[in-house]
């Protein structure tokens, strides 16, 4: 074989690869190209090191006597360059929206505009204290009031509680308001049940139980919606609320939602809507027009505050007239003489049910969300819903001939749901298929959720994917589907082969939990 050389005698084409290429040839150091093998910070030699230059203290805390901490704490330090490398090396082992499609159904992994990050870091927002005199934070209160106005307008609801710190915290807030309303009307003692469809997010039943309600499941029809007859048969004067996600977790709009709300109200119960999927309808449908009494809005989904590897989020809850008086402290009022912050409900002699957290909610997320909303405007937000729904339907249409759509008839909303019927007889499971997607450069879709669909694969592309990116994704899934049906079992069972790590042993992790680094025998942290 001849190879072309350049003028310094270097080959200009790569040598042919080894014939028996295995997927992951071990290296001598554990490093692999751009992926560095990075130990824990505790495994280095930095027990006495620091990466921060501070003034020398002039005392030793002697005035505190026995209260002073004397024993080693066990916190290694890194110089600044070491810290930078440590975290950058770690970062390169993560998938991210900025890298590729992140089609996690129910999670709304959309583009996170950096303008929002910049705005949240303005010292006028980031460097203000939650208990500063309100006269010195008028702009912050105005921002909260403005965001509240946008949220109320988009949902068609009269009130909003801003302080919940995430979706599940919002659910808690909503159910507490419902409970307070039943207490006020003397019905709390008999209304101890919350109805939740089988397709609900896990947080719904967990929240209901968290505040002491008994959870009763409501069946689902064959077309993926709440079984209204079953719901009606379970509604009664012992029911406090229903919790329904709409669009639901099958990615479908609840066609009977207005009837569901009517039946619920007729039974004296309240309608809590899980707003996780608001992205599908923002600007086109107002939950207030559907009869909703309370709904949390995940600012980290619909309004694009970053997910940050699991948080922080924010979960303001819009409330109906009936529930508004029970909203928790604090809240913002504008009495014409500037903005005020009502921090204690009893001051206002209202029926607020209490307080969700120490301070005023997720201000950093409020700034980002308002920045995002203003950037889109009412026209852009309506387009968000339309493009999100269009993208999901496009994926559903282009994959339905090779995979089995769970609900093939009619359009879906912003997520396309498939089951594992099409994998029957291949030995390949939903999990295997998802892990093989990793090798192709995509994050898996949400798997095995909702529980009502066997081997569920829930794909939510969001509106921030281009058609070219969707086509690339669709093409990859079509190729994988073909390989699955052609019997390439090992490609799936062994996957991922190309990720930083292969499949991890979760059973082992849970059987004998090791939740922290501990010093090996004889290790002296102070002496190094």
């Amino acid at each position, binding site marked *: 074989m001849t190879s072309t050389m350049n003028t310094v005698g270097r080959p200009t084409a790569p040598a042919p690869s080894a014939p028996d290429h295995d997927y992951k040839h071990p290296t001598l150091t554990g490093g692999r190209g751009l992926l560095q093998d990075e130990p824990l910070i505790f495994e280095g030699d930095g*027990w006495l090191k620091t990466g921060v230059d501070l003034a020398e203290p002039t005392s030793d805390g002697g*005035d505190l006597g026995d209260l002073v901490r004397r024993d080693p704490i066990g916190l290694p330090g890194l110089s600044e360059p070491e810290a930078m490398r440590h975290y950058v090396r770690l970062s390169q082992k993560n998938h991210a929206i900025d890298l590729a499609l992140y089609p996690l159904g129910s999670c709304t992994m959309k583009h996170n505009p950096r303008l929002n990050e910049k705005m949240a870091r303005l010292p006028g927002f980031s460097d203000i204290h939650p208990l500063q005199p309100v006269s010195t934070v008028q702009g912050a209160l105005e921002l909260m009031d403005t965001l509240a106005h946008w949220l109320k307008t988009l949902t068609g609801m009269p009130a909003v509680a801003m302080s919940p710190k995430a979706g599940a915290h919002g659910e808690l807030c909503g159910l507490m308001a419902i409970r307070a309303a039943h207490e006020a009307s003397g019905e709390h003692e008999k209304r101890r049940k919350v109805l939740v469809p089988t397709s609900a997010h896990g947080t719904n039943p967990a929240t209901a139980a968290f505040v002491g309600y008994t959870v009763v499941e409501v069946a689902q029809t064959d077309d993926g919606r709440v079984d209204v007859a079953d719901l009606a048969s379970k509604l009664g004067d012992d029911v406090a609320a229903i919790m329904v996600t709409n669009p639901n977790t099958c990615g479908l709009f609840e066609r009977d939602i207005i009837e569901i709300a009517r039946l619920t109200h007729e039974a004296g119960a309240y309608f809590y809507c899980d707003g996780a999927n608001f992205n599908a309808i923002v600007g086109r449908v107002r939950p207030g027009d559907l009869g909703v009494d309370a709904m949390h809005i995940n600012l980290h989904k619909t309004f694009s505050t970053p997910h940050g590897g699991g948080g922080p989020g924010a979960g303001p809850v819009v409330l109906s007239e009936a529930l508004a008086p029970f909203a928790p402290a604090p809240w913002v009022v504008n009495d014409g003489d500037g903005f005020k912050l009502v921090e204690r409900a009893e001051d206002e002699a209202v029926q607020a049910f209490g307080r969700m957290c120490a*301070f005023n*909610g997720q201000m950093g997320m409020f700034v980002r969300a308002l920045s995002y909303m203003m950037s889109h405007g009412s026209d852009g937000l309506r387009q968000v819903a339309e493009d999100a*729904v269009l993208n999901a339907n496009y994926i559903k249409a282009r994959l339905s001939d090779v995979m089995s759509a769970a609900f093939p008839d009619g359009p879906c909303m912003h997520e396309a749901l498939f089951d594992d019927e099409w994998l029957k007889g291949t030995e390949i499971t939903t999990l295997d298929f998802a892990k093989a997607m990793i090798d192709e450069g995509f994050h898996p879709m949400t798997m095995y959720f909702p529980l009502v669909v066997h081997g569920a694969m829930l794909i939510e592309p969001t509106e921030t994917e281009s058609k070219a990116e969707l086509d690339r994704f669709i093409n990859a899934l079509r190729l994988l589907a073909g390989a699955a049906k052609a019997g390439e079992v090992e490609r799936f069972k062994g996957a991922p082969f190309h990720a930083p790590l292969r499949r991890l042993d979760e059973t082992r992790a849970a059987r004998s939990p090791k939740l922290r680094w501990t010093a090996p025998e004889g290790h002296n942290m102070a002496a190094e």
Partner: protein
Amino acid sequence: MRYLPLTSDDRSAMLAAIGAKTIDDLFVDVPAPARRDGFVDLPRVMGELEVERALKALAGKNTAAGDAPFFCGAGAYRHHVPATVDHIIQRSEFLTSYTPYQPEIAQGTLQYLYEFQTQVANLTGMEVANASLYDGSTAMAEGVLMATRVTRRNKAVISGGVHPHYVAATETVVHAVGVETEVLPTAIDAEADVIGRIGPDTACVVVQTPNVFGTATDVTKIAEAAKAAGALLIVVVTEAVSMGLLKSPGEMGADIVAAEGQSIGNALNYGGPYVGLFACRQSLIRQMPGRLCGETVDADGERGFVLTLSTREQHIRRDKATSNICTNSGLCCLAFSIHMSLLGETGLRKLALLNHEKALATRDALAAIAGVEVLTPRFFNEFAVRLPRPAAEVVERLAEHRVLAGVPFSRLNPGAGMDDVLLVAATETTLDADIQILAKALGKVLAG
């Protein structure tokens, strides 16, 4: 619209592929009365420049802590955060990733969570820590609920030194499930009073150190009393830096620690997002709330990390879960962890001492003012003073002179009869000049 990649040609082609005529065909399941034509009544699309102008105008109406002598604390503290922290947390791979449910492509997040858990465990002196809760106050609520599960008892005894907002946030949640609380009278230095209130039905006692008035307390005797009665001791810490100078809750016998981690790596942010630290004894882990990251190996035997013990959690256990929490404070954990890695034990101890020194200097300056009485006997970086006038009024007057003098206790608990009490905090960011300006301005206001 700059964030929407589809062109109108794309949309037409995609509708055709779907077999739909218009976008409205995809919304047919929406009941007719709820379908809206046209746009909701809000402003239209804005360019980046316009949004930036509008939001800067709002930010400009606030007095940033860095622009004035600043002495507010009471559960949120202004510290210097190294520039490296904010740079790293804005990396795409951290900022724009989800909860690490697919560990093969989330080792970056999982490894820092494992490091974070170890740092928090060591800082608090506890055996294990979780991967964060929303903030310190919700961590306290979760701690009380956890104690009721562990002990199968139903009552929490809460010291009068616990931050009133923490108490309110906790009572709001735990009363809903029928857990009783007994909150002792507000007091500057009376943590030991909880001992006399421990009974056979006590699931836990909750004490805060340093407490809301800044008083630092050795809770060892409280821990012993709780243990003897079969109750758990929950120690609340609202200023994480204090653990660099003061004995850790673990060393003093805490069973559960619920702390606010904002002080390390995170800005004031007008109250959020913050990061709840939650640590406990190893034997209690199956009753813990929140995510836990654990070590394991992959199919090739290489070490890796995964979220574990998820049978405690809502997405698996639904109504039998230990908590409903899902989204937590991931990126704030990262900020905490980076800042802590930069500090190391050496830097943390130094930082804590500097905070203490600044607070001592502030105390001395205020104690010299006629009519000002220092109330807190021993403290870390925050203390209470009694003023001859209502503190809220004084703080407002000082704000007019662009001095943020601290937090009037009446703002946290108007019913405590402590309208004349002011909470004053100092940190390494406090300048000697700031202390002088505060003392001078306060003296003037009190004299005037």
